[in-house]
């Protein structure tokens, strides 16, 4: 099934060329989103490691910091 585009207000199917370009870019965009998610996960892990050193749970830290 062809991908749909709202082209300046008009709904239509993408042309084969448009669809190929979109899919190629979408693959890169997904890689970018995954890299972002990984970076956030690392950040969260670092935060939890610090809390662990302090002997606090995440909930206790939230209560402390408001």
């Amino acid at each position, binding site marked *: 099934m062809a*991908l*749909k*585009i*709202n*082209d*300046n*207000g008009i*709904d239509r199917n*993408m042309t084969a060329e*448009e669809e190929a370009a*979109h899919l190629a*870019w*979408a*693959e*890169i*965009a*997904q890689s*970018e*989103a995954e890299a*972002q998610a990984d*970076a*956030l996960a690392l*950040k969260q892990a670092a935060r939890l490691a610090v809390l662990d050193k302090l002997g606090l749970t995440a909930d206790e830290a*939230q209560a402390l*910091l*408001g």
Partner: protein
Amino acid sequence: MAYTSSQIVQAVPTGINSALVCVKAETAFTSATSVTADGVFTSSYTNYLVKIIFNTSTANDGLMKFRVSGVATSTNYNRQRLVFNSTSVTTDQLNSQTSINLGSTNGAFEQSFDLNIYNPQIATATNIFSLNQNNFANYTTGNAGVIISANQSASTAFDGIEFSVATGTFTGKYAIYGYSKTV
């Protein structure tokens, strides 16, 4: 009592002295992968406001790019983001991206954006400041705010904008306004 001519209240024509002038009428889209608006940024206005509301077919990110003469630009996007949900606050930065990631949404729950765009039609860096309202998975505890500071750093004059999703589809509506340059 009779009124003199100077006391007669006259109707002001629509659009005169408006702070915001609609340059792209509200446009609905359904199950689309991409949404384009070309020829909307002109020398008539320096700054613009885009209001867009949408939900996606799957949990996915909303993405935006600028366009020139009907062709999307897929380089030089940089974004700083602040997300606040319940008692959690997170920040992150993405540089040299192929689009601006406006944030994730979750299927049935709509998210709403106010995108302020500065100087898009001038051949200099284009800045964006966006305030987003998200609903991650529900309308109660999923309620989250997102603030985005972003830019397209090339010295390019853009005349259009494109919204898209990398997977699945999205359904919603948008309108674009120009900020008046005169009083």
